[in-house]
């Protein structure tokens, strides 16, 4: 009797669990099932759905919450101007879970099953690629706002991007190295997918700028010991170290280990050296190194972007904009412009509309920067974009603008099309 009794319990639990899982999926879809008529030309008054795939949970939930806030703000701006052809825009949000592409795939699929006109997201290259696969399979337009690996949209009709690619930022890094006389340099990055692809691209592009790469060290993030990597950097004869993809704790450990082993080389990178918490944690090590340079793109430093961020923080209370706040906002504006041409219809009509937009001015990158989609190229931000170079000041223990250095990355640096 006891055996039978205790067997029924897990059956009940199993069925209840399955019912629970099914109920979850049904409840999350039913909220937008009522507004599911958006693929065909929108009837009068019915809202146009735009989907957002963001990492609301997982390893970086603050990124997701910032993205959500900016998305809501962008939608409110569009609706404030009367919507798209008189239709109000409604935002549909799905959580990608932050880490695994399987979660991203689930999020993108649910968005396409919700019959959104266009999907915007995700911010890591691997997840964006996973989203591209769904976009191509389901014929739903995807606009990515952040992933930087070059060439991710090649040959994918339904995938677009309004982000700087690695090949573009490489130009700024190498120009800086040439100005400072750092040749050869070493590359240090972790082995995440972005880290590996960025390092590989940098190695390939270095020759174009006449810079030699003396060493390319990597580690599995998070690292507990970086001594072999640091000693290799010292041995390699490099004049400076480029820090690619690296988390805050890794950069702190790297800087401290470099100082402890007497590897006194300047370090520079596109933001990792100034990640939140790192200046405070690694400050003493930074002051002991011959120079620490934070080379950031216009996106976060230019006056218009800063005005945008202060407006965002006033509207939403978010003080930190996430990885690419202005690029996300631009993605919504581009999508709205495309949808205006197709009267709210997505799919192949939207692809044609986006490709015929011409030079669409963006908030990222400052005055004169634009996206320009053609049938053969769907990625990148064009126009002059200026990188601001911050140098570590040991006396004030903070980064300050180094006005003697500034780099203009020209339009042709590595961009396709």
């Amino acid at each position, binding site marked *: 009797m006891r055996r039978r009794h205790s067997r029924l*319990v897990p059956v009940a639990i199993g069925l209840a669990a399955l019912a629970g*899982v099914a109920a979850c999926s049904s409840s999350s879809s039913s909220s937008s099932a009522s507004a599911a008529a958006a693929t065909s030309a929108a009837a009068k008054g019915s809202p146009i759905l735009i989907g957002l795939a963001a990492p609301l949970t997982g390893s970086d939930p603050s990124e997701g919450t910032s993205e959500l806030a900016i998305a809501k703000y962008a939608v409110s701006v569009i609706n404030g101007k009367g919507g798209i052809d008189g239709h109000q825009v409604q935002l549909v949000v799905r959580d990608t879970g932050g*880490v695994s592409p399987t979660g991203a795939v689930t999020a993108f*699929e649910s968005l396409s099953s919700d019959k959104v006109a266009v999907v915007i997201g995700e911010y890591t*290259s691997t997840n964006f*690629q996973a989203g591209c696969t769904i976009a191509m399979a389901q014929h739903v337009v995807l606009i990515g706002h952040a992933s930087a690996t070059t060439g991710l949209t090649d040959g994918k009709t339904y995938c677009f991007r309004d982000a700087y690619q690695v090949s573009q930022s490489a130009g700024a890094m190498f120009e800086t190295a040439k100005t400072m006389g750092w040749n050869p340099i070493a590359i240090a990055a972790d082995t995440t*997918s972005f880290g590996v692809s960025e390092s590989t691209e940098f190695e390939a592009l270095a020759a174009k700028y006449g810079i030699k790469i003396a060493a390319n060290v990597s580690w599995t993030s998070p690292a507990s010991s970086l001594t072999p990597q640091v000693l290799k950097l010292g041995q390699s004869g490099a004049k400076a170290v480029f820090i690619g993809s690296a988390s805050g704790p890794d950069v702190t450990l790297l800087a401290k280990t470099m100082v402890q082993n007497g590897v006194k080389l300047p370090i520079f990178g596109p933001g990792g050296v100034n990640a939140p918490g790192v200046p405070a944690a690694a400050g003493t090590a930074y002051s002991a190194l011959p120079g620490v340079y934070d080379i950031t793109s216009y996106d976060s430093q230019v006056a218009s972007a800063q005005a945008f961020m202060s407006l965002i923080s006033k509207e939403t209370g978010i003080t930190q904009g996430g990885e690419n706040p202005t690029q996300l906002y631009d993605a919504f504006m581009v999508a709205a412009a495309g949808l205006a041409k197709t009267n709210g219809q997505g799919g192949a009509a939207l692809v044609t509309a986006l490709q015929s937009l011409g030079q669409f001015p963006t908030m990222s990158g400052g005055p004169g920067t634009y996206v320009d989609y053609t049938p053969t190229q769907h990625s990148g931000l064009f126009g002059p974009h200026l990188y601001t170079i911050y140098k570590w000041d040991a006396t004030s223990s903070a980064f300050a603008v180094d006005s003697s250095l500034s780099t203009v990355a020209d339009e042709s640096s590595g961009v396709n099309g």
Partner: protein
Amino acid sequence: MAAWIARAHVRAARTDLAMVVVFAAVVIFTAAHGSDFATTTTINFGLFTLLTASLQIMLGFSNQASLTQVGIYGVGAYVAVYVETETGVAMPVALLASLAAGAAAGLLLALPLSRLREHILAMGTLAVQVILSEAFVHLTSLTGGVNGEAVPDALIDSVPVMATICACAAGVIIGLNHFRISRVGRRILAVKADETMAASIGINVRWLRLMAVAVSFAVAAGAGCLFTETAGFISPDDFTLTSSLAVLVAVILGGRSVTWGTLAGAAAYSVLNAETTSLPGLSDLLLGIMLVVVLGYLPSGLTGFRVPWQRVRLPYRAPRASGAADSDPTPQGTAAAAAVDACAHKEPHTRPRILPRKW
């Protein structure tokens, strides 16, 4: 004997039928619901159940813990994609290739780790899982490296594929049910109960343990091939140590029963994971708390049952003797003095039950 086993198989058909009904209900419910999201959720659940069943073969039948199931799942997935892209064969052939790869991996890994038992074996397999993850990342010519690779001809969210996966999961669990009753199954359970005794009555312990690993890995690799059919895109991020830990937790949560335990464990873990992702920032914390609370309160799992005579009772603690202990300060002397005093005071000892091995 044969007749008795045959009757047992027939009796077991009751559970088989129940299992088929459960999975059929799930498939029909999801198909009727119609949304791609529900289909994907059910597919993920079906694949997770397959992985849990594969670990049940190793852990539930043969007491060999493994943290490599998801690594082998990845091996199956990459082999299937490689075979399909290089030779363009259809899915069933790729499935056979994955199964063969899994079995080969099982034999390859089981031999060197065969001396280890229990949780140190788990640690050995942890090392293997990490090495496999690194291999997926670094062997770019075979796996496409960190950027992953697209699967040719994948059918994302198709209801027939979901039905196939659920059917396979049901089939494997039914197989486990009958395996448990069969001669080989009983032998392997005898090995699990007491290895030395089993060897002494002529059971080939080595062979059974190796076969358990090989079959388990073959099932996991087959699940990997099915995964590629639905994913469209695979990358090393899909096959991490965390996922392997999830499978192990699911089996332990499930408990003693090989059929309902597999299903209950997979369902419970999926629900724990799914329910907690709606709360940003707290999801992992809740998962950790759930792990501690559920496993702590139900250490034998959801389907384990505690027969009272197996419960451990601590012996009555003998009171410290006044002078006898001080005269001989060695550990044996102190313990002996305590025992002497206990007897002298004629306190009733309860007979200590030695903790039986549950797994």
